[in-house]
């Protein structure tokens, strides 16, 4: 069996949808989810290279812990979209709520609109491209991976960063502890250009600023005790 299958969440339970995605794909390459109506945990725990279209708004944790799959939310996404993603692509055509891409270890998350607080918190290797702006405390304690923000960033951007890197095209309201602006290098311009191309967004990489860790909190010391 191959081809496409449609689940209408107005008449089929979320459990049936996710069970199918986990255990019954048998060659199915495309799944369409109709009437999501903000349901939580749509297409979580995917582990196959299938394309899932969610035809509307999704609730918490859409495409959570995704591996291999491409998931497109044709609407807005609730908290924790693509949290702990390992690989694949998750695209939100509208806005995303808090903690988008939290602790993602791989893959690409594209949010075409704005994104709420803590975007990319605890990021561990995934990439995130936001077409609009991001809220405060984005990339808090992010360890690896990249965030590209085509709009503005809120307060405390990159607080307690490790090795993750942030690129912002617009303004940054404030930086968090241990985050600092750094000069863009040729490698940064290439990286931003590549991520924008993958996201389908047309901006000039030269308009972006780089934010990374000053690495002053990597080792415990008394002078940093209030920020450690």
């Amino acid at each position: 069996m191959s081809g496409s299958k449609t689940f209408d969440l107005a008449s089929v339970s979320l459990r049936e949808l996710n069970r199918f995605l986990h255990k019954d794909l048998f060659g199915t390459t495309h799944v369409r989810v109709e009437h999501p109506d903000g349901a939580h945990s749509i297409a979580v725990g995917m582990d196959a290279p299938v394309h899932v279209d969610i035809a509307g708004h999704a609730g918490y944790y859409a495409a959570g812990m995704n591996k291999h799959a491409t998931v497109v939310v044709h609407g807005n996404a609730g908290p924790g979209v693509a949290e702990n993603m390992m690989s694949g692509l998750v695209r939100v055509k509208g806005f995303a709520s808090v903690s988008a891409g939290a602790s993602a270890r791989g893959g690409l998350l594209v949010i075409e609109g704005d994104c709420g607080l803590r975007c990319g918190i605890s990021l561990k290797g995934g990439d995130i491209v936001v077409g609009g702006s991001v809220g405060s405390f984005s990339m808090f304690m992010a360890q690896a991976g990249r965030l590209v923000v085509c709009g503005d960033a809120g307060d405390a951007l990159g607080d307690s960063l490790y090795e993750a890197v942030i690129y912002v095209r617009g303004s940054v309201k404030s930086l968090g502890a241990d985050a600092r602006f750094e000069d863009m290098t040729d490698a940064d311009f290439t990286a931003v250009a590549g991520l924008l191309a993958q996201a389908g967004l047309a901006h000039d990489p030269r308009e972006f600023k780089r934010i990374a860790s000053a690495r002053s909190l990597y080792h415990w010391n008394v002078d940093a005790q209030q920020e450690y």
Partner: protein
Amino acid sequence: MKIQREESWGYDRRVLDYIQHASATGLYEIRGLGAKRKVPHFDDLVFLAASLSRYPLEGYRERCSTKTVLGTRFATKPIELAIPITVAGMSFGSLSANVKDALGRAATEAGTSTTTGDGGMTEEERGSSKTLVYQCLPSRYGFDPDHVRRADAIEIVIGQGAKPGGGGMLLGQKVNPRVAAMRTLPEGVDQRSACRHPDWTGPDDLAIKIKELREITDWEKPIYVKVGATRTFHDVKLAVHAGADVVVVDGMQGGTAATQTVFIENVGIPTLAAVRQAVDALEDLNMKGQVQLIVSGGIRTGADVAKALAMGADAVSIGQGVLMALGCNSDTWIRDARPDGSGGEHVPCTDDYAALGTAPGFCHHCHTGRCPVGVTTQDAVLEQRLQPPVGARRVRNYLKTMAMEVSTIARACGKQDVHHLEREDLVALTVEAAAMAGVPLAGTNWIPGR
């Protein structure tokens, strides 16, 4: 002239050491293991065994079940254990890979479960553990949906008894290349574990998070929620409302690999008080028996296990005790043991303790990574001091001993199942313990505060 040696209660040698260390360094102390202060504990309770008013079972022959089932509320595949004693979550990073392997072997041989920890699941522990509980921690270090699928249960960690609300720390000397790679961090940095989860806040969100994990695991695996003991009555209720199959309550005597001493000794409530509050919460919700309760934090002996069960726990979880079974604070380590872990030569290591500024029996230097007996280290040489067969044999023996002690007490109380031990079988030796545990002061029918 006679020298006056009257020690100040308020400024005893411990406080003097603290003030002098703080004034010399400007640093607070970070250390391992758990609270050292004396607090009301299971030692302050005793059993009322059978006599004329109760009928005992024959202590060595009659059957007394220790079987324990966890996760019966929603999971389609609950966990069945041979004994009510589990191995607590401790990270690869704080412990060596050999130790994680040894714990898995011991738990499997004893018919119980072991638990991962901050930093993710190692192949060694998955391979050696028949039943492995996978922790979902705020840091999400190494968190992997493949490991979620390979686990037998998931434990969402909200807090830890040694440091509720405090997050965690793994000092750079233990962040070797393998630990760094698993946690996606630079080698040698002081690694901070967050105190809050990155993708949810509050009990309403937790309910949604639990459902996400249930969907990912196709509702097969039990979901535990672990809390450090503070406002335990309310926390347990909220965990139950959020949909937990099992609630784990960790009292202030619980251990840690590295935490500020001020935190270890001054934050949280004793296990004895916490278990009482947790059981009250389950009974208040009429969920006793539907949601299982695991108690941890200073469980050391079969008597402690029996008392926890009598107070209403379904199982206990042990961390520091199994480390000590492995050799923690021993003055020797074992070389050239037989393949089954028996025999071997005891090699003295008191000098290694001295190099850390401590001695066997007093060591709490897990945070240094220089564990003289090879338990809490990532050093390539030191970790060889604890070989998995030796550790497995010692921990298995410890677990077996405690299981026998629990059933011995249960039989004496006339129970054919250790889970039939009940609060009515206990009395307290002190007013404080009676009040915290909610059992009468021995020789009276007085429960303070009731």
